[in-house]
């Protein structure tokens, strides 16, 4: 009789310096061979729950711990994480930061070296892992040169090489484009189905994972409940757009995949008339104009023949797979990447970064350096020669007034993004670019951000944001631009552009056909 892979018995845990427990009397059992999903809002305790599985909580973190966690029958309190390395593997959220060695092959072997695995056996194991995760081609590469999806697979292989039965992953797909995410999920499923592994993963972007898993754990305010994925997602009021639609219109069970939703839609009701009228083309003044724009990166042309005009009042979603040139386009339009050919005109002259164009980078944390949120905004105002300008309007517009006195680094990822956005918008630049603003963003922060973008354009500005998040694009954009291979391959209303794409189609489009973008739209039409 094998013990359950993981068992939590009345686990409570409070971080040092924290006043609230991160886990509160948690009881949970994860059976051997299951593919489990951990869901919950940001800060609910997902990470803590995962880290308790191999004893990082409490051995690594310190703090006050009670209860027991048994992993594969072993008590985590009795064994330090390093002693459990052969039993449970842990893959952190950012694999690039977790790599210890430089070469893929060495990275895979690192865990086994620590465990003192016999060299001959180690050699075999590394080969197996290379094959299992389809990494043989990459064995001699430096981990630095890998793409996001490759990194994630290397991290998984490295965690698995020591031969654990349980694999714990913290948001494995959050940094990947849809194809990369698909690839990783397929690899994980293979581990569960073909190799009898137990996989536990936490994920924000439920639309990517909900269809793959067979059990879910909802985490909310330190409490954990379990059930089948649909029920858990239903109860947590989180989930992919199809689930949100299900909740809006009262379907039971809540659909988790596009396929479920199609079935449900057929059974319950059919949407009314084909789609809804796309938003009228805004006719504001042209602020940004790129003509026959070309840009290079390390001798390689990454943008070619870009003709693009952005008008006042527009919110433009810039889409395309990784490496399509989205970031380069934003940087070139903002005037920080050299124009190889063609021209960029902002407001009648060359773009002036930080003056008439502002860009919130992919890693928005890169701008945060002050000790309080309001100082952060004030720093921008001071740099623009407006040291005594009012800070609070910017905080109000992003809904972060309550955080004014806090240290930006103490905030959640979503809140930090809002702070960074406020700091960047405070330049007063009419043209605002955001590069992938939705990473690690909880729905609440997303809502604040969307509201801010609309108010910015209402004041006569223009916004363009690069994103993989089709659902955000569907929700806020008035226009979508699709890049591929450095060229614009589609430009028009989100309904047209996204509806036309296989990869980037939002779930509503996939269920109900072109024209349908957000669950709210569909729900309105259905009722």
């Amino acid at each position, binding site marked *: 009789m094998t013990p359950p892979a993981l068992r939590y018995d*009345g686990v409570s845990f409070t971080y040092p310096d924290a006043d609230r427990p991160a886990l509160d009397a948690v009881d949970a059992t994860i059976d051997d061979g299951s593919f489990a999903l951990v869901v919950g809002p940001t800060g609910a305790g997902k990470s803590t729950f995962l880290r308790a599985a191999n004893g990082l909580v409490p051995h690594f973190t310190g703090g006050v711990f009670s209860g027991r966690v048994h992993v594969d029958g072993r008590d985590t309190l009795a064994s330090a994480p390093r002693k459990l390395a052969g039993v449970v593997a842990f893959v952190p959220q950012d694999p690039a930061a977790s790599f210890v060695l430089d070469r893929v092959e060495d990275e895979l072997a690192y865990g086994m070296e620590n465990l003192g695995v016999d060299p001959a056996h180690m050699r075999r194991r590394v080969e197996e892992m290379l094959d299992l995760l389809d990494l043989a081609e990459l064995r001699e590469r430096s981990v630095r040169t890998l793409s996001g999806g490759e990194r994630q697979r290397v991290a998984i292989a490295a965690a698995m090489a020591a031969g654990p039965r349980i694999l714990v992953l913290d948001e494995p797909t959050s940094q990947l484009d849809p194809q990369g995410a698909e690839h990783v999920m397929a690899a994980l499923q293979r581990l569960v189905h073909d190799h009898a592994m137990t996989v536990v993963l936490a994920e924000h972007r439920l639309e990517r994972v909900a269809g793959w898993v067979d059990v879910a754990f909802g985490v909310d305010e330190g409490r954990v409940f379990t059930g089948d994925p649909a029920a858990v997602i239903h109860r947590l009021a989180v989930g992919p757009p199809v689930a949100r639609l299900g909740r809006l219109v009262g379907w039971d069970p809540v659909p988790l995949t596009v396929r479920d939703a199609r079935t449900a839609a057929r059974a319950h009701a059919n949407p009314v008339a084909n789609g809804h009228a796309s938003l009228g083309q805004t006719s504001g003044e042209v602020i940004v104009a790129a003509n026959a724009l070309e840009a290079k990166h390390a001798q390689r042309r990454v943008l070619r023949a870009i003709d693009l005009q952005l008008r006042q009042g527009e919110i433009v979603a810039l889409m395309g797979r990784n490496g399509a040139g989205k970031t380069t386009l934003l940087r070139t339009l903002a005037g920080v990447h050299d124009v190889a050919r063609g021209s960029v005109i902002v407001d009648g002259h060359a773009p002036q970064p930080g003056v008439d164009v502002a860009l919130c980078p992919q890693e928005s944390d890169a701008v945060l350096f002050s000790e309080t949120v309001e100082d952060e905004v004030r720093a921008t105002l001071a740099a623009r020669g407006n040291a005594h300008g009012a800070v609070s309007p910017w905080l109000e517009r992003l809904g972060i007034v309550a955080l004014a006195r806090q240290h930006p*680094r103490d905030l959640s990822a979503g809140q930090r993004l809002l702070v960074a956005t406020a700091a960047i918008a405070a330049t007063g630049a009419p043209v605002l670019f955001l590069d992938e603003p939705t990473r690690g963003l909880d729905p609440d922060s997303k809502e604040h951000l969307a509201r801010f973008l609309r108010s910015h354009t209402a004041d006569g500005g223009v916004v363009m944001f690069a994103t993989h998040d089709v659902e955000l694009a569907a929700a806020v954009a008035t226009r979508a631009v699709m890049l591929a291979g450095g060229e614009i391959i589609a430009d028009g209303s989100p309904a047209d552009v996204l509806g036309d794409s296989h990869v980037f189609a939002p779930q509503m489009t996939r269920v109900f056909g072109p024209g349908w973008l957000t669950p709210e739209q569909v729900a309105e039409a259905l009722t």
Partner: protein
Amino acid sequence: MSAATIAPVASTRAPRLRIAALIVVNLLGAMAFLWPFALPALLDVTGNEEHRIDGPWILLILLVSLGTLLFLELGRGGLGPKAVALIGVLGAAMVALRLPGFVAGFSAMFIVVLVAGNAFGPSFGFLLGAVGTFASGLFVGGLGPWLPFQMVAIGWVGAGAGMLPRDGSWPVRIGALAAYGFVIGYAYGAVLNLWSWPFVAGSSAIGWDSAAGGIANLRHYVTFYAATSFAWDTFRAVGNAALVIVVGKPLLASLDRAARKMRLHVAEPITRQGA
């Protein structure tokens, strides 16, 4: 437990023994630098002219004694993942600052050692200085007989920064660190020149004279240093102090926060058996 003292270097040896060992190996290291002054005196005791040692040969003896120092200091083991990761990340910052951030004798690399040594204590400071210097030496392809000298000297810079006050008010802490940075700007140059001095300066009024006494050699060295390095090292001294004043406070605040986040101060979790 004092929040400021972390011991990423957990030693199994008795602390008193460890401190004694530390003092001995560091004295050994100091000897390695100071032999040009001490040696003539030693020779005088024997009074044997035949035993006059050729300058360069002593370099070998030095390398051996510095190697021993590094061997004992770095080989103590038991750092644990947190300290290794921190040294890796901060060492990377040193590597990254080694090439672009230098003007004459000044290298922005020092700010990392100063600040991190101050935030995490002398033991960590020494390790970071030594390991970071080694890594940056590897990275820029700067391996050679001088590397042990640099490792130990920068290790000491970090250790010294860790001995400065940490619990006082910000102006005191920054002031002390800036003054220290200024002083070590010269001291580092003066100490590091010593390894090559007997080679470079020849025996002259500014060179090492195996026959002259320690005081005379010291005078020679001061002349040599003033002639060749003083201006150069002024960049380092002023640069260190300026950097500490400008970025010291926010960086120290960052490191202090990081230490809290990484729970560097928390050795054992508290377990409560209930339920």
